[in-house]
Every structure is written in structure tokens, then in C-alpha cells.
């Protein structure tokens, strides 16, 4: 008899889905969260008006140097004085990088993890993303094709609530959408110019995980429509954007099947060589340092790609001296992120008699065209751009003049500026990896992560081209004062899309998971965070993690019912 039917490690983006799907199928589920509990009514600060924000909501410089020396430079746009409790303190959660490399590991340890602070862009992977590795002979083939995952995208989007437009683009398949956030006239003008000048390029509405026409199911969970406040990085009293805390965890909770334990840092999984299964997890309590063991019939790792790989690497046994489920030696390898650092901005004229009302959560998206509709590229794969065209405003005070005129100039929306930035695909490379540091440990005695990640030639060439393309598209719309900084690739990890550390594949010799996110070596072990990704595509990945998680849970429960696991 086990303590629980299933243990889910992590309560974030994918862990919330594991909890919901397994609980709704009748399993008794234990969710282990390494951080403290977040309660919206206590911990959200989205309703704090500007005049109640201390020091322009800036964290003191000394405090940044002491506690947020990685998190703040990495995510300065979102890490503020009022919401700093959503981000880890770097001195308490250290990691290391191999000499000559750098890595941004940007984290939130608490209920719902980074699903509280994410930027909510939700794009499906397209058919080409599942076949590219095979066609190009890069890494290994995905064991899944788009058609197999499509119904699961439908399933999760229906529950999540994604605002967007059905644009009919084969490389960025349409999903189940609530009404999108209409483009500004300047964006529509830009769209028309770009699409006529560059056949095969498209400018579409960002697709974001915000409710705009909440379903009965979403309302039952206490969620309401987006109020266009753009305070999402501070939580949302309306629960209008998707997070585990707003949607999946409450759905799991209401089944009566979920137990959630906070401050439980998983150290190892226990493996039984006779049954060839995991029997449970060993944790250390972050507050009391107490060690505990929980047993279960099945384990889902949803600790995030890096942490899940590290848990496997820490779980050494006679059968698996190099880490659990690691007979392929692929655990921790092929670590990928998306790469940015190329783009352009400029002024777009003709809209001076307009302003906007409300603060929408997303602007425009330019789906990947490179090596899809345009084939003549000096690089493989491609990138999408995120951006917007909106009034610049003057509230920063960086215009000439003093007195009444200066003061009143701030009532004007100011010139309209358009800005686009690329998110590019990083190719899988087995040498890009996270390992356990040989001798450094954190305050609970767990080995710290050691990163060794470098971008390859393809990423460098691609981003140079992305910069040129961005300038050309702005020029096509007659933009002026176009500003495009020299390409400066983001630090690996900075896009917070880490993935690939336990890739799926058909061959147990070169992959960790099968097509169901199930470990080849250990049939009752599933990894459904970003670890399973065989390649990165260039789309923001959360919605894909959700779809694969729901599919894996369905499969796992069937195997349990059939007594296969």
C-alpha cells in the first residue's frame, strides 16, 4: 500500500496540469512544492496603485547586489520591490557556470511556480517543428507528430482560455481561442505594409492566455475576464490570466483528491531494482530540515527542466550509477532556451490623432517565415518576433521644456513607436548541459547546478539576419528614426524557456523518455515539464508543456488501469 497513487513534483505550469488531470481521473495525488504557499488574497500586489509603490517600485540597489544579482538583471522588467517575493533570492539558491560560460536561471519557488509571473504568450508548435530534426539530421527525431498532439492542444486551450485570432497559418496552427486584443491602427498599417512587401510574412495578434469571454467552467473556478490593467507580473485578483493558482490547482483541489505539501524539496527518487519502478520520493523540509519519504505508484516530475534533470542525476543506485533513468546518458544534456537580442524600433507616423484606452497584455506577433515561406537562408530553423506599436507617452520626462507646457505634454499620447524583437530557436546540442556540481551544495546539502551552455554558429547567424529583417520590415512601413542595436545575444536561460534536459525519442539508447513522456528505463516515471522537448521550435513553449502533460496523464492512468504500471 502506497501513501498516494501519484506524486507530482512541482506545482507550476506543468505540475498544476498533472495534478488536475490525475485527480480528475480519480487518483489520490500528492503535490510537492519546494517553496512556500502563495495566497492571492495575501500575496498578490496587483492592486497596489503607483502612489503606494515604494521608491517607484524599485528594489534597493544594495538588496539587488545581495539577493537578486541574477534575477534582477535577468528580468528587470518584472522584478520589482512589491513583487520580489515571487522571485528567488540568488544567495539562497546558488548555481554555478563552467568558466567562460554564463547562464540565467530565473526562478520562482512557491505555489504555482513561474506560472504566476509568466508572460502568457501561447503559440502551438507547428507540423514542421516535429519533423525538422529528422529532415535535417540534427539530434534525434521527435517520436510525436503534430496531428497526435493537436487534440491535446485543443483540450488544454479550452480550459486555459487563450485570447487570439485564427489566422490560418500552417506553421502556427490555430487553436481554441477567445476574442483577441484588436491591433492598433498603427499595427494594422504595419501589417498591411509588411504583408504586401514580403509575401509569406504575417503580422498577427499576439495569442495570450487571458480570458476575454470566460466560459462557465472558468467562471466556476472564480475566474473573470481580463480588465486590461497590465499588472500581470504582480498577480491578478481577477484570475484572468492562466496560472496554476488560478485554474489547474483549484480544479484539482475541488476533486478532493489532492494533497499539497509546501516547503518540500525533493532530493531523490527511490528506485526498486526488482520491480524496476520508482517507489517514492525523499524530501527535505526547507524550513525544518526534516527528511521525509512519500511513496506512490507513479511519479510525475514537473520541477522544471533543470530541476527535474537534477533530481534524476541525484538519484543514483546500483542499477543507475549515473542517475535514475539515465542509461542513455542524455539526462541534463541538450539544454535549450530561446535566443533574443535582435530587433528594431522606430517611429510610425500618421496616428497622431489617436490614443489607446486600457493596457492590453500582448501586442503583435510575426510568426516564423524563415525556412518556411522563405528558403534562401544562411541558417536553419527560424524565429518569431514579438512587439507592438503604441503611443510612446512622455512620462519619463525625457522631452524638452519646463513648466505648464512640459506638464501638459504628458497628456498627449506622444509619437507612436513600433518595436519588434526576435525569439529564435536554439538547436539541441548534447554538450550544452547541466550537471551536479562536484563539491558545492546549497544550504540543504543538495548539489548545486553546474551549467555549461553555449550558443552555436546557427544561433549567431540567425540573429544577425533577424536584425536585418526587422529593420527592413520597419522600413517597408515608412518608419523613421529606426534604431537597431548591434546583435547582443541574450544569456542562455534568459528567455526562461529552458527545456530539453531529458528528451523524448523512440530509441532508449539516445533518449530518456518515450513519446508519452514516460521514462524508457522506469515505466512509472514521467517528466512533463520542458525536459521532454526534443527540439525547441521558436514558439513560447508553455502551452506545449500543458498539452503534453495532459496527454501523458491520460496515458499513465490507462496504463495503471491496465495494470501495466
Amino acid at each position, binding site marked *: 500500500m502506497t501513501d498516494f497513487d501519484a506524486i507530482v513534483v512541482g506545482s507550476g505550469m506543468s505540475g498544476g496540469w498533472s495534478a488536475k488531470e490525475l485527480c480528475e481521473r480519480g487518483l489520490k495525488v500528492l503535490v510537492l512544492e519546494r517553496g512556500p504557499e502563495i495566497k492571492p488574497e495575501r500575496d498578490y500586489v496587483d492592486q497596489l496603485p503607483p502612489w503606494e509603490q515604494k521608491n517607484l517600485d524599485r528594489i534597493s540597489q544594495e538588496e539587488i547586489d545581495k539577493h537578486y544579482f541574477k534575477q534582477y538583471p535577468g528580468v528587470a522588467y518584472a522584478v520589482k520591490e512589491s513583487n520580489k517575493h515571487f522571485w528567488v533570492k540568488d544567495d539562497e539558491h546558488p548555481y554555478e557556470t563552467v568558466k567562460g560560460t554564463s547562464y540565467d536561471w530565473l526562478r520562482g519557488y512557491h505555489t504555482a511556480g513561474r506560472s504566476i509571473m509568466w508572460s502568457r504568450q501561447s503559440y502551438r508548435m507547428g507540423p514542421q517543428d516535429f519533423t525538422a530534426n529528422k529532415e535535417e539530421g540534427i539530434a534525434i527525431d521527435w517520436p510525436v507528430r503534430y496531428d497526435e498532439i493537436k487534440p491535446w492542444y485543443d483540450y488544454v486551450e479550452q480550459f486555459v482560455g487563450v485570447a487570439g485570432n485564427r489566422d490560418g497559418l500552417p506553421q502556427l496552427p490555430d487553436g481554441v481561442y477567445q476574442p483577441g486584443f484588436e491591433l492598433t491602427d498603427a499595427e494594422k498599417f504595419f501589417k498591411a505594409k509588411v504583408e504586401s512587401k514580403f509575401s509569406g510574412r504575417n503580422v498577427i495578434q499576439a495569442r495570450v492566455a487571458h480570458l476575454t469571454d470566460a466560459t462557465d467552467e472558468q467562471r466556476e473556478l472564480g475566474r473573470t475576464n481580463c480588465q*486590461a490593467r497590465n499588472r500581470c507580473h504582480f498577480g491578478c485578483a481577477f484570475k484572468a490570466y492562466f496560472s496554476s493558482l488560478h485554474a489547474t490547482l483549484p480544479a484539482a483541489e475541488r476533486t478532493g483528491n489532492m494533497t499539497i505539501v509546501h516547503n518540500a524539496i525533493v532530493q531523490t527518487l527511490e528506485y526498486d531494482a526488482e520491480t524496476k519502478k520508482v517507489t517514492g520520493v525523499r524530501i527535505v523540509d526547507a524550513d525544518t530540515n526534516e527528511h521525509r519519504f512519500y511513496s506512490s505508484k507513479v511519479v510525475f516530475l514537473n520541477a522544471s527542466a533543470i530541476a527535474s534533470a537534477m533530481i534524476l542525476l541525484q538519484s543514483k543506485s546500483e542499477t543507475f550509477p549515473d542517475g535514475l533513468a539515465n542509461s542513455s546518458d542524455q539526462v541534463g544534456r541538450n539544454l535549450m532556451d530561446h535566443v533574443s537580442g535582435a530587433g528594431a524600433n522606430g517611429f510610425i507616423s500618421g496616428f497622431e490623432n489617436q490614443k489607446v484606452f486600457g493596457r492590453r497584455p500582448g501586442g503583435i506577433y510575426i510568426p516564423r517565415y524563415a525556412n518556411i515561406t522563405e528558403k534562401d537562408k544562411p541558417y536553419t530553423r527560424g524565429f518569431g518576433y514579438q512587439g507592438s506599436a503604441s503611443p510612446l507617452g512622455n512620462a519619463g520626462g525625457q522631452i524638452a521644456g*519646463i513648466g505648464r507646457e512640459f506638464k501638459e505634454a504628458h497628456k498627449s499620447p506622444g509619437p507612436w513607436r513600433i518595436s519588434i524583437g526576435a525569439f529564435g530557436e536554439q538547436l539541441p546540442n548534447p554538450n550544452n548541459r547541466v550537471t551536479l556540481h562536484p563539491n558545492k551544495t546549497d544550504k540543504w546539502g543538495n548539489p548545486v547546478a553546474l551549467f555549461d551552455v553555449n550558443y552555436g554558429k546557427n544561433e549567431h547567424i540567425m540573429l544577425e539576419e533577424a536584425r536585418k529583417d526587422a529593420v527592413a520590415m520597419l522600413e517597408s512601413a515608412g518608419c523613421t528614426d529606426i534604431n537597431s542595436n548591434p546583435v547582443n545575444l541574450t544569456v542562455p536561460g534568459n528567455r526562461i524557456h529552458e527545456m530539453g534536459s531529458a528528451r523524448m525519442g523512440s530509441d532508449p539508447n539516445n533518449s530518456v523518455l518515450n513519446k508519452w513522456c514516460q521514462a524508457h528505463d522506469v515505466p512509472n516515471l514521467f517528466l512533463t515539464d520542458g525536459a521532454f522537448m526534443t527540439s525547441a521550435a521558436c514558439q513560447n513553449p508553455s502551452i506545449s508543456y500543458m498539452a503534453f502533460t495532459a496527454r501523458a496523464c491520460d496515458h499513465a492512468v490507462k496504463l495503471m488501469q491496465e495494470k501495466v504500471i
Partner: protein
Amino acid sequence: MKTRREILQGLIVSIGGGSLLNSCGGIAKVALPSEDAAQFYNEEETAWVARISDFIIPRTETPGALDVNVPRFLDGLMAEWANSETQENHRRGIKKIQNQLGKGYLTLSEEGARDLLEDLDKSAFEGRPSEYSEYRSLKSLITQAYFASEDGALLERKWVAVPGRWDPRVEI
């Protein structure tokens, strides 16, 4: 509403500038709560920041920078947010602006002082030369502080806490 003059007095006195005010006009002290005590600026700096803030964002039909106590806000920002390097830079910046505006600036007539600042502002934004970066930086802080205040946000900027909808096209 207090007169602008009263606010300026109260503000400067509240952070220890009483003697300065007395020396340049013999104005009576105005007591403010002790939690408003100076944390970073000395009395001279306070007087300068107050005068510049007042010219940059004066009281019009809506409150101005002094009404919402921008100098005190910046004082707190420098004391609580800034590290020692930023503090030193800020202090040096004020000194530079003092040199650019001239020693007798605080005792100049209202009109003369405003004209001088207007000239400085012009020089600072025509081609944005680096020798005026300290002024641009102070102006930016003053403006940000003003619009982060309740009056600045609600009355002047018409900030709406809960728009409730997105309208991409509002004709003006």
C-alpha cells in the same frame, strides 16, 4: 490648498533648511511631522531640488511637483533605494547643475530663475550633450516621481486603475 510659497517653505524647513530660507528671505518656519526628517539631501540640496521641481512641474489647474512633495520623495528614493555610488553620483549631479545655473540661483527672482532653467533645459535637449546628462536625469526623476503620486497619476495623467476593456483606437 496651501500656497506654493508655503509648501516650498514647509518642505525646505522640514528637512533642515530653515536657516537657508531665513538667510534668503526671512520666512517663518513651518513644522512638519518628524517622520519627514531629512534622510539624504542637505538643506541646500533640498532648496535646489525644490526650486527646480517647481519650475519643471508647476501648479496649474492641477497640483504641481511641490504639492505632491517631489523633493521629499526623491530624498527618500536616494536614502532608501540608491547605493552609495548612486548617492554620490546624484550629489555630484546636483553640484554640477548648481554650477550650471550659478551660485546666486536661489536668490534670483522667480522670473529670472525660471528663464535660466529654461535656457539650461534647451541646452540639455538640443542634441542631448553629455555635459547635461545630470540635469536630464534629475528631470526624469522629478517627472517620474510626480506622475507616480496620487494627484499626478489621477488628476494629471488620468490613470485608470481598472480600464476593464481594451480600445485600440480613441480619437483625440
